[in-house]
């Protein structure tokens, strides 16, 4: 029976959800393999969260430190991930990173150059050698502009400002997805052979975050509801330095380059506390270490009255700052009225990256649901318990390309399924139900409660009691989910999108908190005050899976890397210790 709702049907070999670095790179790869590609994103093309990346792209080109090689990059990444990353992904990543950077340059990106014309690479936290290819402090912007320009010149069909609410599967195989266009106010049904999730992280679950509006982890939630396995959900990276005052810019990232160029951290009494915590590496220690030290200074009352510590780079002088960190200077001048060449900055940890995500195969980025692929921050496995600065942008390209390749090969043999009308009808009615409720509760109130709870109870240092409180708040909000609603229609109605996002955020938050409770140890970004040490009994990944409505959780042991990679790790630990 024809559905009584109007909708547009779009068919393609490969459907990609998310137009950040990973999604665009996958679209390029798929269209180069002669596949018809549709790319769908919540924000406009070219405005994904990737544009905010500042640090650079880590790759062992060895342009500056000749002795750098993929092996050292492998060891740095694996050790930083505290041994629970998928070693095959780390191997593929460190081997292919260099080709991806040179490929991006061939697409037209302009990196900073060394004196003899090669790509310049700079130092970054916890990298043994100088490895970050960068474009001033706007590397993410350059990456996404180059890929955007490349995609626009293929015949990929781009549908931006479209919210996907459901992935449709039939006996374990992907058939397509259902969503609606915010701009046209019209429902869309996508039928495809292969589907790639590249929707990025879930920083918006927390009140204080550097992530932008679209990072609510929608991709994780709709994939989970379609049966995909999610892994390492509890691993959330807190970047040590995020802006604090004024409240409107709380959580905005202060790039690691400030400390890289000599910025020092001071508490209220002006004491350089990092000398006490990590005398050798001081401010340039790994991100989770510095974040914990700042957190302790603030909670033990040595923080400023805005609840922060000072980051001081005035000793470098105005000219140096304007040369090396222009957008940091402008950011503090425009948003906080602070002149960082004369005054100290106030910084505090902020949620920055999500190491967890959809469990994928190392080579093809396929998930356990056939036809479903994932790449970028939405996927999981490369970074383990903590991510190296600069690894994320190269991760987007390496695994974006492999996801595009995997999806193309899969779609050769797959058959295009058809989504039946009843399923379309139910989904459209579910969405429209939000707009036709009598005196609905405002979704933003519940979102605010959730974010407040996550930031205060599931912060850098976690404990059993707080985590259970958070779980209670989540279940309480879950109870009120059916009462949320909003007036107005489907076209560009932020309230309606907030309702749909809340359902995904609650789903992700529950998995995150339950995984944090389960992992009774401290490892990488996940720190427990009641279990301070790391113990090898937890050398496992926590994996969630939805089986007929019930959330199943099991602890999968981590695969040991083969012998020759073991030696690389041992040698890496020596230099790192």
């Amino acid at each position, binding site marked *: 029976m024809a559905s009584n709702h109007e909708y547009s049907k779009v068919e393609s070999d490969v459907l990609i959800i998310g137009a950040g670095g990973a999604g665009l790179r996958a679209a390029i790869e798929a269209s180069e393999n002669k596949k018809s590609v549709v790319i769908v994103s919540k924000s406009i093309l070219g405005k994904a969260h990737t544009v*905010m990346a500042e640090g650079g792209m880590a790759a062992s080109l060895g342009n500056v430190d000749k002795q750098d090689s993929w092996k050292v990059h492998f060891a740095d990444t694996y050790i930083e991930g505290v041994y629970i990353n998928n070693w095959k992904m780390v191997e593929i990543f460190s081997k292919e990173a260099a080709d991806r950077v040179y490929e991006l340059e061939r697409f037209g990106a302009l990196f900073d150059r060394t004196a003899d014309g090669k790509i310049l690479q700079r130092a970054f936290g916890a990298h043994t050698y100088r490895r970050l290819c960068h474009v001033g402090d706007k590397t993410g912007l350059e990456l996404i502009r180059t890929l955007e320009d490349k995609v626009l010149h293929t015949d990929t069909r781009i549908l931006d400002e479209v919210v996907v609410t459901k992935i449709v599967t039939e006996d374990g195989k992907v058939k397509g997805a259902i969503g609606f266009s915010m701009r046209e106010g019209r429902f869309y049904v996508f039928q495809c052979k292969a589907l790639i999730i590249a929707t990025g992280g879930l920083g918006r679950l927390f009140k204080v975050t550097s992530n932008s509006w679209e990072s609510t982890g929608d991709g994780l939630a709709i994939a989970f509801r379609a049966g995909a396995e999610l892994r390492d959900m509890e691993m959330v990276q807190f970047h040590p330095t995020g802006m604090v005052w004024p409240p409107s810019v709380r959580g905005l990232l202060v790039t690691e380059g400030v400390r890289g160029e000599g910025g020092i951290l001071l508490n209220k009494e002006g004491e350089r506390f990092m000398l006490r915590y990590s005398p050798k590496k001081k401010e340039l220690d790994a991100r989770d270490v510095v974040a914990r030290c700042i957190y302790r200074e603030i909670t033990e009352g040595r923080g400023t009255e805005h609840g922060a510590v000072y980051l001081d780079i005035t000793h470098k002088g105005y000219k140096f700052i304007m040369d090396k960190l222009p957008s940091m200077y402008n950011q503090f001048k425009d948003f906080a009225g602070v002149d960082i060449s004369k005054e100290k900055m106030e910084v505090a940890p902020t949620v920055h990256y999500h190491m967890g995500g959809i469990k994928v195969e190392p080579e093809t980025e396929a998930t356990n649901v056939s036809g479903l692929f994932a790449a970028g921050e939405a996927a999981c496995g490369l970074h383990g318990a903590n991510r190296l600065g600069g690894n994320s942008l190269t991760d987007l390209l390496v695994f974006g390309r492999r996801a595009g390749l995997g999806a193309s090969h899969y779609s050769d043999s797959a058959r295009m399924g058809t989504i039946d009308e009843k399923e379309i009808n139910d989904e459209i009615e579910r969405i429209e139900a939000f707009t036709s409720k009598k005196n609905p509760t405002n979704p933003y109130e519940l979102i605010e409660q959730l974010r407040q709870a996550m930031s205060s109870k599931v912060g850098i240092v976690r404990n059993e009691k707080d985590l259970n409180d958070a779980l209670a708040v989540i279940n309480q909000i879950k109870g009120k989910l059916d009462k949320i609603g909003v007036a107005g229609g489907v076209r560009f109605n932020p*309230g309606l999108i907030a309702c749909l996002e809340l359902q995904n955020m609650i789903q992700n938050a529950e998995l995150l908190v339950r995984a944090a409770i389960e992992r009774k140890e401290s490892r990488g970004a996940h720190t427990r005050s009641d279990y301070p040490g790391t113990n090898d009994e937890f050398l496992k990944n926590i994996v969630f899976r939805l089986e007929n409505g019930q959330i199943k959780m099991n602890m999968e042991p981590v695969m040991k890397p083969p012998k020759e990679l073991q030696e690389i790790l041992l040698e890496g630990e020596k230099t790192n210790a």
Partner: protein
Amino acid sequence: MHEVVLRIKRSEPSVSAETRFDEFKVPVEEGMVVLDAVHYVEQNIDPTLGVRWNCKAARCGSCAAEINGRPKLMCKTRVESMGDKITIEPMRAFPVVKDLVTDVSHNFEIARKIPPFTPKKDTPTPFLMQQSDILRSKEFRTCIECFLCQDVCHVIREHNSDYVGPKHVVKIASLDMHPLDGIDRSNFMHSDGGLGYCDITKCCQETCPEDIKITDNAIIPEKERIVDHVYDPLGRLIHRIRGSRWQ
């Protein structure tokens, strides 16, 4: 804690041609930007208020609007700098989708027509370039595609012409001035690009939030490159003799 009055233009052209100005009272905190005020309205008073934003750090260029008649980014304009009554309207050069949201998709159709970066045939890879050569193109690559310059350009705002707009001239200049770029886009600019319609009134350069010198460093050099090909017979003669001028 004083309050500020937001006058926001509400309209949904595909539903009804009626447009109206709603007024909202918003309590002001220290360091509050206009986007915060709009968020306060959206979250507490009217969740159906259509507004587009993403990063809230002037990095993505989604929240372009006309605040008190001047095209600005909402996330970068301080509330206290705009007085007690702030009028917010959508960008006038583009069709309105709803309230403050405009349809900028046409810009991507134009972007498809711009000839992409094509290095010369025999360029050895990996590329070797000098830092001093990439600085010109690098300035243009800080463009966050907020389309404020397109909105303020009177040729697009008021007239009906086939001028691509300052934003795309900046994009073309960033490709043309790439040290290893092999093709010259000035004939595209002259025929399809409609650069003749630009009359150098520098409104775009004054409104760019990233301080790109759009007119001085992008539009005028592109115009001079068109003059090389079309309006300068003497130059073409010298080129034919010396052969090296356009390398």
